[in-house]
């Protein structure tokens, strides 16, 4: 119990003292999660729209596969990506292992199913009249996609928030691909894992609080978007 209280105190101290190590981890976390969320949205939202909007043969099996991939453990994604980007892997020459882009790619793969599945559901849950209305007003395919996503904006936003939450809080991928290298690829979550591994539970809690604060700020700015739209 003590370490929860102590963790809170440590969290304040970490932030107040502008602790350099913590800030390096915060920055790395933000960089990776922004990169991965941008990539996963730009791939996942179009895919999710297509999966939710169109009827095509094989739609149901694809949907099942995507839903199943929601259960993909981070470590497995990590191993999978590692197999490709390790020096001996087919993409070894790009030197992505132990780098921020490397982690971001793996995180993208991790959260893509969330983005796709939740976006598809958001589009499927739309009033069936949306489609006909947009077509009859003359919208072309990409305009239909954009307008449908706007109609489903709350549900799409929550897809984004869920995906972001998953990306920022995962540790398996960052550990496996990033290597938790201090000043370099150490994220808040890998730092938490490290501290916990050392038995520094209060420090782990403190970093956890820092992470949640970060997520709160990010969500706050998204909620601001939500209000404006």
């Amino acid at each position, binding site marked *: 119990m003590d370490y929860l209280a102590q963790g809170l105190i440590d969290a304040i101290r970490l932030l107040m003292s502008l602790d350099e190590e913590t800030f390096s981890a915060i920055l790395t976390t933000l960089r990776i999660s922004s990169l991965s969320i941008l990539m996963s949205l730009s791939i996942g939202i179009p895919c999710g729209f297509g999966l939710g909007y169109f009827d095509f043969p094989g739609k149901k099996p694809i949907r099942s596969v995507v839903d199943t991939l929601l259960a993909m453990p981070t470590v497995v994604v990590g191993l999978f990506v590692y197999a490709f980007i*390790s*020096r*001996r*892997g087919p993409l*070894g020459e790009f030197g992505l*292992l*132990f780098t921020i882009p490397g982690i971001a790619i793996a995180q993208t793969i991790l959260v893509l199913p969330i983005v796709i599945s939740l976006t598809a559901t958001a589009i499927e849950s739309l009033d069936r009249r949306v489609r006909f209305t947009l077509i009859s007003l003359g919208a072309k395919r990409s305009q239909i996609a954009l307008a449908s996503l706007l109609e489903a904006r709350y549900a799409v936003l929550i897809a984004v928030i869920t995906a972001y939450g998953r990306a920022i809080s995962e540790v398996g991928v960052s550990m496996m691909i990033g*290597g*938790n*290298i*201090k000043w*370099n690829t150490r994220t808040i979550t890998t730092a938490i894992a*490290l501290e916990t*591994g*050392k*038995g*520094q*539970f209060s420090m782990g809690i403190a970093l956890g609080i820092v992470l949640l604060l970060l997520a709160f700020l990010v969500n706050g700015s998204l909620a601001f978007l939500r209000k404006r739209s």
Partner: protein
Amino acid sequence: DKVLMMATTTSTDNTGLLDVLAPVFKADTGIELRWVAVGTGKALELGKNCDVDVLLVHAPDAEEEYVAAGYGTERTQVMYNDFIIIGLQEDRAGVKGKTVSETLRLIAEKRAPFASRGDNSGTHKMELILWKNAGLAVPDREPWYIQTGQGMINTISVASERDAYTLTDRGTYIKYEDTMKGNPPLVILVEGDRVLRNQYSVIAVNPEKCPTVNNDLAKTYTTWMASEKAQKLIAEFKLMGKQLFYPNAGEN
């Protein structure tokens, strides 16, 4: 910028030793040392895949195998610490001060809880050797034998929650003592046996198998670790006023 990529075991990282050595190494050689702290098995695997330049590990048998298979060169021993058996102060199996083999026999006999790391780490491999030395089969599905498959600190936590004995390296234990504010529920019961020595070595990844590795830097690092300066730093590294590692480069 010269960057040397190293895979090491969690103990060197968790204790903070590398945080002391790396800046000095950089000042001396201009090489930036970056390391990933993982289990010994995974560290060796990273070496096999050419993802790191050098290894700092503590599993002599696996290391020899690794070098013999041609994955590594210039295995150089740099330091050691030792393993200890810890348990509750009450010591229900009455092992305090006994030899290691007797200790294990008593534990098995009394069916006293024993936490094993069960993760193929250096510590786990040592434990397996100890069971063998004691003439016992390695327990598996015994209810008193708890296989955690986790790191050392977590295994100690499990042991303390379950009132169990466990085998640990001294460095981690001192760290644990530190976090418990000097008043840990588990105390040292068995120590000092020659078989309990925990040897750390540096191995460079073989450039013939991995053309992309920085073998020069690895060599520099190996030499530096064996240098007097580094050896002194290791000897002086203390936690709670206690020495964690004993330099032994060049010794056999």
